[in-house]
């Protein structure tokens, strides 16, 4: 029998080198510490931290979450204790973790993002992920991630100022995600990650009230997986930078769907809530799949989708 080593699972996302392709999705894993009680965080390919803004953000009123068929809606409102709080309270713990630490950043202006990215570079994190699903206050509040010109300006501005591996997290709430993937690549993003949540809404018919205080929220979980897999596949055919795929991943088979569609790595979000050890189960499952199919490198699996020829 073939000897299995952990090197089987190594992936290179350009300059960002991971010990395995499984990471956590921003906003679903806190700052890491909470889950360190349940398993060894060092097993993760990377840890992606909850979105950080320059100033602390209070977040939305409750109810902030509600369950929907095979998924959940959330309108947390980006609650976080800001850059200073992060540096003081969370960073020291993250420095002790022996895996890659990626920080998700968000702002209301290009300058916010640039400042945050520079600070993160200075703090020694391994990469930054731009959460572009935030309103661009100077441009009437339309999200950076849904307006091509603002999206491009943002990525170029950050790229100019930081050398750190740059991940752009794409919003699915657009008519053609390929267009945004292409702009991200052309503007200097090293990696793209997708998908962020899909905007949704749920109503309690008894009370006639929306189930979330914010009225609308972001849909995540298995309900969005087919949409996410399709978007990863479209982006894979469009760009040549590596892709981190996410959206409803609960098992290694789910993760492999994304990888076969073209993702080099995957992230688990809502799946952490169902079971704190979802990520490690997936790592083991991918390893088993490789052993069973005799595939010895992750790169041989990325985009290895077989589309039968039509007669």
């Amino acid at each position, binding site marked *: 029998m073939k000897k299995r080593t952990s090197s089987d699972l190594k992936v290179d996302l350009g300059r960002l080198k991971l010990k395995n392709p499984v990471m956590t999705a921003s906003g679903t894993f806190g700052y890491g510490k909470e889950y360190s009680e349940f398993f060894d965080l060092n097993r993760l390919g990377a840890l992606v931290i909850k979105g950080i803004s320059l100033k602390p953000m209070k977040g939305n009123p*409750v109810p902030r979450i*509600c369950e929907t068929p095979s998924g959940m809606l959330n309108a947390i409102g980006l609650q976080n204790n800001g850059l200073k709080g992060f540096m003081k309270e969370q960073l020291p713990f993250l420095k002790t973790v022996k895996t890659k630490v990626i920080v998700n950043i968000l702002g209301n202006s290009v300058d916010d993002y640039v400042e945050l990215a520079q600070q993160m570079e200075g703090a020694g994190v391994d990469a930054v992920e731009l959460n572009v699903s935030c309103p661009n206050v100077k441009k009437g509040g339309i999200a950076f991630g849904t307006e091509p010109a603002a999206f491009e300006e943002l990525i170029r501005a950050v790229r100019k100022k930081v050398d750190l591996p740059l991940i752009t997290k794409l919003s699915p709430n657009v008519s053609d995600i390929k267009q945004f993937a292409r702009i991200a690549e052309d503007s200097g993003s090293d990696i793209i990650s997708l998908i962020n949540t899909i905007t949704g809404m749920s109503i309690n018919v008894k009370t006639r009230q929306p189930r979330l205080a914010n009225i609308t929220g972001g849909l995540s979980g298995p309900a969005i997986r087919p949409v996410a897999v399709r978007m990863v596949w479209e982006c894979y055919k469009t760009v040549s930078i590596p892709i981190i795929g996410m959206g409803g991943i609960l098992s290694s088979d789910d993760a492999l769907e994304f990888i076969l569609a073209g993702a080099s790595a995957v992230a688990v979000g809502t799946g*952490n809530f169902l079971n704190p050890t979802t990520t490690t189960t997936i790592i083991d499952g991918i390893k088993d799949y490789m052993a069973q199919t005799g595939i010895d490198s992750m790169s041989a699996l990325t985009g290895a989708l077989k589309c039968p020829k039509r007669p």
Partner: protein
Amino acid sequence: MLSVSNGLDPLLKRPFSIHRILGDDLQFLYRVVGKGTEILSSRKPGDTIEVLGPLGNSFPVRKSNKNIVLVAGGLGIAPIVGLAEKISHSRQFLKKSDEMNGPLLFYGAKTKNEVMCREDLESLNIKPIISTDDGTFGIKGNIVTCLKRYFSRHKLMTEGCTLYACGPEMMLKSLSSFTAKKGIHCFAALEQNMACGVGTCLGCVVNTKKGYRRVCKEGPVFPIEEIIWDKL
């Protein structure tokens, strides 16, 4: 947090308080209100249910708390019974009378059928003051009104007591205005929609004087005076 299904429906775990711990047994007391609790009620002896916990804090009973009074509304009785057991052993409670040598407990329910745990309470030597909304059992009316009446009648006895409460938001809210007026210490166990149960999703917050706090992590028990009720 209990996993109620093995599939995708319902997707999320459901939060429950620990009712009692008896030897190696962990007891939960719940009411069927929807899909999750419905599935739970169809489980048979010998089935396995995944439990994530214990999570969050519990009622903070200090040695100095001599005169503890308990308040439960509806299913809020679940954690209160366990607490009653604990303080019965340490004898830190306020007695209702000399004949009944157990802690003073106010317990409100909608109707007679929903009054639970009477045998458990009896075995702990507790004779609760019970009220039902429809008057089918005990005193007719709401339990906070009963409690207020009791406190005004027994002024001397109730001085320096600490209240521990669990129940619907309406009950806790009216309790909080009473305890604030009288300067009584009170701790309340709150409920909120939950996803992760471990403090990462920030879905379960309550608005407090110190800002938003997570019910699953910093809670579910909070000093009642810290809660900002009108902007929960």
